[in-house]
């Protein structure tokens, strides 16, 4: 029984990290790159209008960082709950 509740806690911890990451994923692409693109384009990053930059550069960089962050957090959670692989 103990192992079962441990598993449930582990899964909840996983979902928490997951939702956090997906919130950022949605923000940089759909919100900054598409929904708010015209507003953000008023601001400039060098020659890049900011919304355009998120759509063609910034979102992609963020995605890469997100996946590595997720892998790092999950490995720590695996260890904490004692379910890491050998």
């Amino acid at each position, binding site marked *: 029984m103990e192992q079962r509740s441990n*598993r449930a806690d*582990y*899964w909840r911890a*996983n979902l928490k990290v*997951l939702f956090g*990451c*997906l919130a950022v*994923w949605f923000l940089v*692409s*759909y919100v900054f*790159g*598409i*929904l708010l*693109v*015209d507003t953000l*384009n008023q601001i400039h*990053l*060098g*020659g*890049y*209008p900011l*919304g*355009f*930059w998120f*759509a*063609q*550069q910034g*979102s*992609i*960089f963020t*995605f*890469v960082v*997100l*996946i*590595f962050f*997720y*892998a790092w957090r*999950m*490995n720590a959670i*695996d260890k904490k709950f*004692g*379910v*890491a*692989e050998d």
Partner: protein
Amino acid sequence: MELQTLIYLVVGATFLLYFVLAIVARAGTTSEFYVAGKGINPVLNGMATAADWMSAASFISMAGLIAFNGYSASAYLMGWTGGYVLLAMLLAPYLRKFGKFTVPEFIGDRFYSNTARVIAVIALLVISLTYVIGQMKGVGVAFSRFLETSVEVGLFAGMGIVFVYAVLGGMKGITYTQIAQYVIMIFAYTVPAIFISLQLTGHFLPQTGTGATLTDGSNQYLLQKLDLVLVDLGFAEYTGTPDLMNTFLLTLALMIGTAGLPHVLVRFFTVPRVRDARKSAGWTLLFIAILYTTAPAVGAMAMWNTLKTVQDTDQIGSPEGNLLYAERPEWMKSWETTGLLSWEDKNGDGRIQYYNDANEDFAALAEDEYGWKGSELTVDRDIMVLANPEIADLPNWVIALIAAGGIAAALSTAAGLLLAISSAISHDLLKGVFMPNISEKNELMAGRIAMTVAIIVAGYLGLNPPGFAAQVVALAFGLAASSLFPALMMGIFSKRMNKQGAIAGMLAGLSITLLYIFWYKGWFFIPGTNMLPDNAENWLFGINPTSFGAIGAAINFIVAILVAKMTTPPPHEIQELVEDVRVPRAS
């Protein structure tokens, strides 16, 4: 050295490398044939997956797509990369923990149903076959352009090469060749981009060069200047943002589709552990991002180079502003011979006019005030990558490298798709459903035969494309999004999801997506059989058929959840299986 000889040498050397790798890493067991014995280092798997994923279209066509569509092409950039976030967090680690050989196998086991498995196989075959046709054609085209053979000869050569290394090497051989192909591809793509960025903006990194000021003395930003000149020539602003709803939906459809593509998913079965699968997805996207963040730079800079070659941007409308055809640069001459670039002197002034004559107001103004009688230059979008080394005056070996890179991009994706097709047939259909007692040796043989047949079918379809080349990508992504992704995700994230729900969901998502695409593109893409004209006024709620995969996925989820609610929960051992897949350590 003569350019043609150099190209033969470089391309020939890469082929030799692929053969050697395939012989050294040939598959001896079904595990090696399907999943490379699950022993691939996660960083190397990231490289192989990046090559697997980036097709001839990514390498050759994407920059051109961006060049001509500006902001609107962002859906492809975000969609094709953002899908990896979904794949890394929602699918890859769990499928790796499941630890078998194919994607339909997971669906069959999780939904305790051979029917579900067969539906997944059918979806996989349609997705992968439509995709592989384009790759085979890409090999043929790359050969014919660079090696001066006919498209047919190029296609046969490509078939032969894939046959040798994919049939012999299986997943193990394919993995090591894909790693080599990634290196060739990325080098060929970035070197010309760096030089062009240095020439135009003085920036070493094309990614920052695109946001920098031009070094031509105008002191204007590249993107700002591009916006201004395009508008002066009747085009839309490069950074302008029309139709945000379809950009949103297309991005979503491409993301969900990417995460559901079986030939990409199966690459994450090849790493040793769950944590390697998580990390490997990060490396994959990093390797892809190197090309995908360079592509917008190549697009913008190539567009600028093309415009300022034919048009003095300070003198739009005055006759001297347009380039005399007789004085055109060498690279234009050499690409005219390929037919990718052509000029027609509509107003008979011997000068090249390039502008948007589809814009009626501007066309009328240009005729009245400038004496222009229509845009005279036709530019194929593929030129934006292929002609880059010549535009930047780079040495011949860079041109040879682009040839090898384009062929590598097409071959690596074709091999990955062919493997997905052959394992669905030999492992899921034969071993899984029709001949459960087949010996391992015979299954391996069946896999090799299935791949050979798949190569022949793909080659035939590449030679006789069914007339819907442009639409197949929409179809492949729409189907992957509306069938496989939701079933896989619910199989992992919902313990309550049962056989009835998953089957109903996949069938509903698949059929409605197909129906919507056929409704506007014609039944089975046969021209003239469409029920309504394919334009924004007729689309349901203005949704472009290309973007419909996102809606199809939503339908799949809703139908599956409703049906599962009304039917019996999955048996106890299946719920145990889900528990087990969610936890990395073997229990």
